[in-house]
């Protein structure tokens, strides 16, 4: 029983990897970017767990900077993905411009808050 479960899981992962291999490179880049941002945020959370949250505004700035940019990257990915019919008429360049603008505003606030 357990063997079949492990095999099923292996099959599932394999199917997932093969399906993901078909994803366009542009989307993969965004995915790596999101993972990078999330990991950076995680490292900061771990640091806070070890030493305490004393400069709390700095901690919040660091974590929210990462999380915020990850969320914006996810939004960019949704807009750029050709399978999403809603954004069919939206050129990917326009989506990228939005992403840049939102990041500029986000980081202005972050820098103000970092102390």
């Amino acid at each position, binding site marked *: 029983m357990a063997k079949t479960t492990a095999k099923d899981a292996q099959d599932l992962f394999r199917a997932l990897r093969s399906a993901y291999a078909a994803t366009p*490179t542009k989307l*993969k*880049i965004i995915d*790596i*970017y999101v*993972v*990078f*941002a999330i*990991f*950076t945020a995680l*490292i*900061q959370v*771990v*640091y806070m767990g*070890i*030493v*305490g949250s*004393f400069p709390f505004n700095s901690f919040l700035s660091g974590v929210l900077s990462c999380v915020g940019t990850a969320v914006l990257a996810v939004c960019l990915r949704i807009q750029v993905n050709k399978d999403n019919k809603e954004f069919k008429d939206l*050129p*990917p*360049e*326009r989506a*990228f*411009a939005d992403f*840049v603008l939102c990041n*500029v505003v986000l*980081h*202005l606030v972050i*820098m*103000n808050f*970092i102390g």
Partner: protein
Amino acid sequence: MSRNLGFLFLILSLAICQAAIFEPVSDKHRSAALHLFRPVDGSFGSLEESYESLRTFEILGVKKFDVSQSTCPLVVKTLEASPTCSKDLFDALRVNRILRCEVEADIFEKIASKLQTGIREASSLLDFYYGVGSLGLIKEQSPETNVQLSDASTTFHSIKSLSQSDGRWLFSFGSVESSTYAAGTVHPGLALETLAGVISLASSELDQSMIGAVKSDIVKLFDSTERYDDGSLYFDDKLLDTHGHQGPISTTSAVVRGVTSFSAVISGKLNVSYQQLLSCSLACLLAFVVLCEMTIKFLLPGELLPGDKILGLARFFLGIGVPGNAKDLFTQIDSVACLEDNKISIPLILSLPATVLSLTKKDQLKVKVNTVLGSSAPPLTVKLVQAFSSDKKEIPVLENQKLNVDPESSDHSLDILSSNIDIGKYIFSFRVVLHESENKKIYATGGQTQVPIFITGFINVDSSEISILDSDLGSIETKQKLDLSGKTSLSLSANHLQKLSLHFELTTPHGNSFHPHQVLLKLSHESKVEHVFLVGNSGRHFEILLDFLGLVEKFYYLSGKYDMQLTVGDVAMENSFLIALGHVELDLPQAPEKAPRPPPQPVDPSSIYGPKQEIIHIFRATEKRPPQELSLAFLGLTVLPFFAFLIGLVRLGVNLKNFPSSALPATFALLFHCGIAAVLSLYLLFWLKLDLFTTLKALGFLGIFLLFVGHRTLSHLASMSTKLKSA
């Protein structure tokens, strides 16, 4: 009848408020004069100062300084320069009158003739004053010089024409406004002195009606006197607006000089011949009738003013005491000297060498009556009209006693021991009765004089005892005799259910009860908490009962040793005492929870100036920081995902093939990336040192630039991709 009664009441009320002692001029004034007028380099300074010093010493009879060596040359120089009708000349002549410098007779002749012309041409009252005054002085110093005023009547008229209906005198003929000093008013005293001088210098008789008019002016002037409660009269300069020195002393002094010199010359004229005497008496009688109507005051025939007014003025000058500055001392002494031998009435001053009399020492009540300068009075008797205690004013203690005269010292004394007068504060009223009826017209005694007097003596303290009583039964537990005159050291003990009783008797030498000003019992605890109790009395018995049950709260439940102190004191009591009685050991119950705490004892006042306690500032403790190594390790750790990201990109085979190849789009693309880098660097600067406003301004410009190049780049890329699709 009722009017008479009212008048009597007025006199009595005036007499009652005159409870004050005035002392005639004495050695105190002499030592003050020697202290205040001190020659510097053999001279007193200017001629005016020299005159004031010399005149004061002349009146007081002090012959200590000889300043003629230095002052006479100044006098002769001023006389030779002979300015007409000036203050300098007047002062020089005044000084010369006292010093008698050697001045040649023809100098006086020259000055006199110049002054006579000067007076004829004079236009202001001060010119008249100095001119006439100087002539009078020349007349005195050089009798052979002709100083008579041929047109005295005209001069008198022109001076009199300066007088105003309200009692003021104009400064000169030109000045119409008499209300202010600036417009020129001169003190009436100066004007009167000038008029007196004119009369004495007149070659022919003056019109008596003119003199009568001046007399009525004087009476009018005395209506503006101010009065103190002690019966002294003075003139306020606010009403009369003096020329020169301001203040009531100099104002009153000017009036005194003017009035006395005027009365001196008119009475001098009276003595010239019988005919003149008769006419003048008639005029005076006439004036008297007029005055009686005007003032409704009692006047003797021929008197210019009632003696009481002169006495009031004398009291004012003596009431000053010994003035502290030279000007006031001169003014006081000069005025008093004018009053000493004036022709109106000579004031007699009743004074007492001592107002505190001891029954133990068998002191006698002594009274002196002198003139203002301290010379002896004519034969007279002093009567003690009444003496009453200051507490019980309705019952007089002594009445109608005649004081015995000591023929040697001319002191009047009364043996108060023989009379039944007891210890206390009294008010004695005296009346001076002159023996000869002639003297009654010459001297002013001023009715009754009231003087406060203390009679002191030894108070007997008897049957003093202290006892502790049981509260419920009132039975005596301990009882001890006390010797309040000597040393006592009691040692008592009591609890809160008992009472402490202190009892003693006070009697005067005459066996009457005596109630001192202070009778206090003080209990003081070891911790310096003090309680003061007033000891009440009924007649001669003084008693206090301390019920400790009612006092426990007041004592703050403090058990232990209380020191007892008894105070009995009064001004009239010669044996006032403050003695420590000993102590009482009190056993009081424990203090309940809400009992009041004893108040903090007053701190030593010297400790206020000691150093204050140091102020320690408490700062917020710094937050605990992690070790630096850990922080640096995590900083490195955050860079790791970035490297992983880069590796991931390389693994995906990312390339820059889509970067625009033609020149213009490539430049825009490059500028776009540089713009983003610039924005990020700006953020870094904002974090490190810039403020929000500078950052926003820079971001505005960078943003517009970024928008422009970004738009160009991205639209180029979009057009490229559509081209690819369509191809």
